[in-house]
Structures are given as C-alpha cells and as structure tokens.
C-alpha cells in the first residue's frame, strides 16, 4: 500500500525528516509514536502533499505510484486521507455541502457521475449514526465553533464518507474524552479491511487500546529509531521516551 524509502524533508531550509523507511501493507494498522517535535506531523503532511514541505531525498510510493508526481487533491483521488490534528474552520460552508463537493470531486476524478442525492443522504445517515453525529451538526459550517472532540469526530466522519485506501490519523485522540475516543476508534475499525491501511500517529498509547496496531514505530529526530509490535507501545507508556533518545 504505502512504501516510504529514505525520506528526507525540510521546511524553510530546516531538515525535519532525516531518512524514513516504512512499509505499510494493505490490511495493516501501523502506529507511529514519538515525542513532540520528532517529525510525526511533518511525515503526515508530506504524505498528503503539503507544499510547505520540500522533499529533498527519498520516495513515497502509494500502490507503486510515486506520490511526488501528484498534488494534494490527486493524492486524495489515489486514496490518501489525512485526518488533521487541527482541522481548519471554514465558515459559510456546511458539513453536508462540503462532503458532497469532496465526494463528487473524487468521483469526477475516477470518471464517475455525481453521486445521486438519495445515495448521498443514505450514506450520510448511515455514517453519522455510526459516529453518533447529530443531524443538526451536518448543517453547521465546517468546523466553525466545533469543540475539539466534534472536530475530530467530523474528521473521521469525512474519512468514513470518502472510504480512503490509506488513512493517516494525525493525533486524532487529542482533545477526545474516553467516550468520544471509543466512538472514533470504532469508526476507524469499521473502515479497516483487507484492501486498505491505517497509519495512526499519536503521542500516547491510549488510542491504541481501541485501534490495535499490527506494528508500532518510534520516531525520533526525523528517523524511525525502533519498530515492533503493539507491546512496544506499552513499553513506551511505561518507560516514557527518554530511553528512546539514547537509541538515536
């Protein structure tokens, strides 16, 4: 699904990613953990195609395609989805209109007709119910005045609607109470299947209780310094990140 080879990236001349290798296969869940400032969010931005970051070396391949050739919307059309750590507020555009525009843009890129209104409504009903989203919420302006938890839930709602092949969840657990965390995790688990993959980026082990990873990687100073299975996450929770720094 996703292969990252020796990825180096910088922002404003400052190197942040310093040689990352990662191989995520379809059907897998990978967790990327690490202390603040280790490059976790940069990695997700770079995969999604944020033009503020410059890839100086290495490659990102999605289903064998070199993502360097694609802009953010084209990456989305190929199946990349990024759940933002800080979703942007867009006053004046309702959640429903936004999701309709996004779905139709993706369909257009696949050469499909616009989604029939009845199908869209059915899907919205189904996915919002799954995530415990009130229908009133859907006619509000996108993220405007949403609580932290509502924003994150809305991100997962968009993911459920767009059904990406690769979902990157950037600190989706921050700002969520335990009930919301369970609902969000449940939404992610429902999406999970043989033909797609999930990358969970998180500082804490908490979310991984509910979205159980197949592999855990520890990122420090722009490099993956340790990889393992879900037990590694428990170890990090127990011991903190200091011992990791010594591995670097």
């Amino acid at each position, binding site marked *: 699904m996703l292969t990252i080879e020796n990825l180096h990236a910088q922002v404003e001349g400052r190197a942040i990613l310093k040689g990352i290798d990662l191989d995520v296969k379809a059907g897998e869940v990978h967790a990327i953990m690490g202390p603040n400032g280790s490059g976790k969010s940069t990695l997700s931005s770079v995969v999604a195609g944020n033009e503020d970051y410059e890839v100086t070396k290495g490659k990102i391949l999605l289903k064998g395609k070199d993502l360097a050739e694609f802009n953010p*919307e084209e990456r989305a059309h190929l199946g990349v989805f990024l759940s933002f750590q800080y979703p*942007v507020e*867009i006053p004046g*555009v309702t959640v429903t209109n936004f999701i309709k525009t*996004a779905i139709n843009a993706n369909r257009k890129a696949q050469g499909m007709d616009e989604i029939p209104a009845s199908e869209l409504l059915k899907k919205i009903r189904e996915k919002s119910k799954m995530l415990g989203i009130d229908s009133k919420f859907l006619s509000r302006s996108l993220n405007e005045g949403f609580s932290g938890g509502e924003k994150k839930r809305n991100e997962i709602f968009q993911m459920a609607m767009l059904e990406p092949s690769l979902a990157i969840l950037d600190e989706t657990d921050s700002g969520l109470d335990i009930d919301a965390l369970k609902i969000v995790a449940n939404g992610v688990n429902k999406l999970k299947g043989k033909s797609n993959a999930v990358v969970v980026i998180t500082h804490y082990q908490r979310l991984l209780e509910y979205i159980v990873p197949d592999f855990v990687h520890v990122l420090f100073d722009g490099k993956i310094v340790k990889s393992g299975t879900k037990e590694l996450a428990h170890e990090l929770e127990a011991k903190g990140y200091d011992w990791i720094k010594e591995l670097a």
Partner: protein
Amino acid sequence: MEFKEKLISSHLAFEEDLDLFDTVHETRANALKIFEKKGFPSKRDEAWKYTSLDSLINQDYSLFPKSEISIELKEVKKYFLYDTDTYKIIFIDGVYSPFLSNTTHDGLDVCLMSAALSKPKYRKIIDNYFNKILPNEDSLTALNTSYAKEGAFINIPKNTIAEKPVEIIHFSSGKEESLWLQPRNLIVLDRNSQVQIIERHQSLKTHPVVTNSVTEIYLHNDAFLDYYKLQNDLTSASLIDNTFIQQEKNSHASVHTFSLGGKLIRNNLKFFHRGENILSTLKGVTILEGKQHVDHSTLVHHSKPNCESHQDYKGIFSERSEGVFNGQILVDKIAQKTNAFQQNNNILLDDKATINSKPQLEIFADDVKCSHGCTIGQMDEEALFYLRTRGIPKKEAKALMTYAFANNVLESVKLPSLKKRINGQIANKLGVNLGFEL
C-alpha cells in the same frame, strides 16, 4: 470641445420638447449651474481620492440616442430574473421599451419618470419628493438632475404590498458608438407598504457606455424596502450610481449591491433617518478581475434615537483590479441608543490587486453602540490545503472559499431565484460548477 462643455451646451436642445414653465425646469436649470461651476470631481476631492473619472470623461459620448431601438425578446430574456411574475421597466439606450416592459397602475404605480414628471395626477408627488434629498453641491447628482427626464417611477400607496418584484433594466444596444446615460428614478413607499426591486445595467455589445444614475427613495412609517443592484456588465461599461434613501419611523430599508463586472463602478449609497426605530441594511459582494475598479462610498446618517444600521461589504480582488470602500457613519448628538455596525472584509488574490478601505465614524452621541471592522488578507493557504486533501481541486477549493467568504451577504438575499442567479454568476466568474447553492 470638452465633454463637460458639450453637456452644458446641449442642455438647450434637451429641454426643447419640455415644459419650460414647469417648476422642474427651474430645478434642472439650477442643477446645471451647479455642474457648470463644479465640473466633474477629480482626485483632489477627498471623496474621489481613490477613483478617477479621467479615463471616462476624456472622450466624447452621444447624449441623445438617434432613434428608438428595438431588441427582440429572445436576445435579452436571459437578463430577466423571471420571464413573468415581475413588473418590468425596461430601457434601451435610455429610451423606454413598452414591448419589453410590464408596468402597472393597478393599486400601485410602476411606470415611467417621464409620465410622473408630466402628468397632473403626479404633480403633488413630484412637488413633494423630486430632488428633495440630494446633497446640494454634488456635481454628478446635479448633472443628473439637469438632465432628469426618464427613468423608473414607483409609487406604493399606504398599506400596499407589491405582490411582484420590480425589475429595472437599462440595456445599451451598441447602436451608438458611445453613450452617456442619465436615468433618474423616484421611488415612494407610503406608510406600511412594501416592495422588492432589482436594478441592473447591461450592455449588449462592447462599446463605451457611462451611466450616471440617480435614485431617490422615500420610506414612510413602517414601510419595507428590499433593493438589489446587480452589477455584472461588460468591461466597456461604467456606472456611477447615486442612491439616496430617506426613512421614517419603523421603516426597514435594505440594499444589496453585487459588483461582479464592468469597467469602473462608483456606488454612492446614502441613508438619512427621519424617525425612530429605523433599520438600514447595506450589503455588498464585489468580485473583480482584470483592471476593473469598484468604489463603494456609503453613508448612514443617524439623526434620530433608537435606530440601527448594518453595513457588510466583502471584496475579492484578483489580477490588477482595484477596490475602494469608504464607509461613513454619522451619529448626531440627538441620536442616542444608536446601533451602527460596519464590516468590510477583503481578499487580495494577486500582488497587483489593490483595496483602499476607509471606515469613517463620526459620533456625537454618548450612549451608542458603534463598531467597524476592516480586514485585508490573502486566501488562507492552510484551509486551501485542507480542502485539497479531501480531493477538491485547487480551483474549486478557492471557489468554495470565496463562496464561504461571501456567504454572509448571499444568505440574506430574500428572492430565491435571484439568489440562484447570483450564485450562478459568481460560480461562472470563478470558472467552476460547485453543484450546490449556499
């Protein structure tokens, strides 16, 4: 001969077939003197600091179209909001087109200014209202007054609701090489009456047209006005719109101005209060490109207590386009408990685009709520990236954000088909089809 001289020397010919014993003749003659003395405004005038008329007045225009032009309905139908179900007052090259219009005298008057100025039954209205709220020393309104003869006349009697909106449309056919038009509108809403009006100016061919329009509107107690100005003309057409609104007790007047096309547009929009509990609303969306220039110059003069005004203007400027917003709020000492708010938000999409925004609040009362806010910024790149990660292409994402930015103004448009029309025009201008209306 300079164009100013031509305007003065042509006046005799203009008045040839008009009644010289009429009081209106005197009004015209006095107005001409003011224009003769003042001439066209220049950048030396504070109110015209950012808008120059030089490029318009340094050439010649026909003042009187040679003959009546006929246009086929199918050529212009697309500019009508509705095929039927509106009153229509339609002019071609400044001349009334009975064929395209749909006027009425049934319970209300939707007809011609020339009729109101000449028929005895309207004498009282003309005496009471014609040229009564214009600033005395303003040269462009004086110029319009000196040539006042034709335009729309709307008179809504008390306790009457105009069941259909009124469309006032000025077409220029292109038959004249270049044309200077001066429509004069008078709109009177008697007590507890209501009307919705849509006004537009439209060239059918690319040729120089300048319209110097004056509209006087009077709202009596409890009257309700909803006025929409659609400015989406060809880039060869310019418009100087002077609209003056006088409101009495408990009246509501709202004016939306959509400036999407044209060469140079100046909107002078001024509200005067003559009673308490008045609401005045001024909203605008301006989306410009190329070398277009739009100047909104507004005034709300609060001269009575307990009144409210809202101004909300959004501007989006690309390429080398220029915007001006000069929003004036005047609160007299007597006008306590005034609520006056003003917002002007702008996005500059290109380095060469400019906006000059100047809020001007003069408050002499001490117990008021007044605020103004002005922003000038670029498109939010982070929001753009967010939309693009959802698969929305850059161009559509920009359009979506433009819509979102203008949404406050669009959502208060009360006529659904007008809203749809404006949505379409904006989408068209942005080169996208969003597939929904906000």
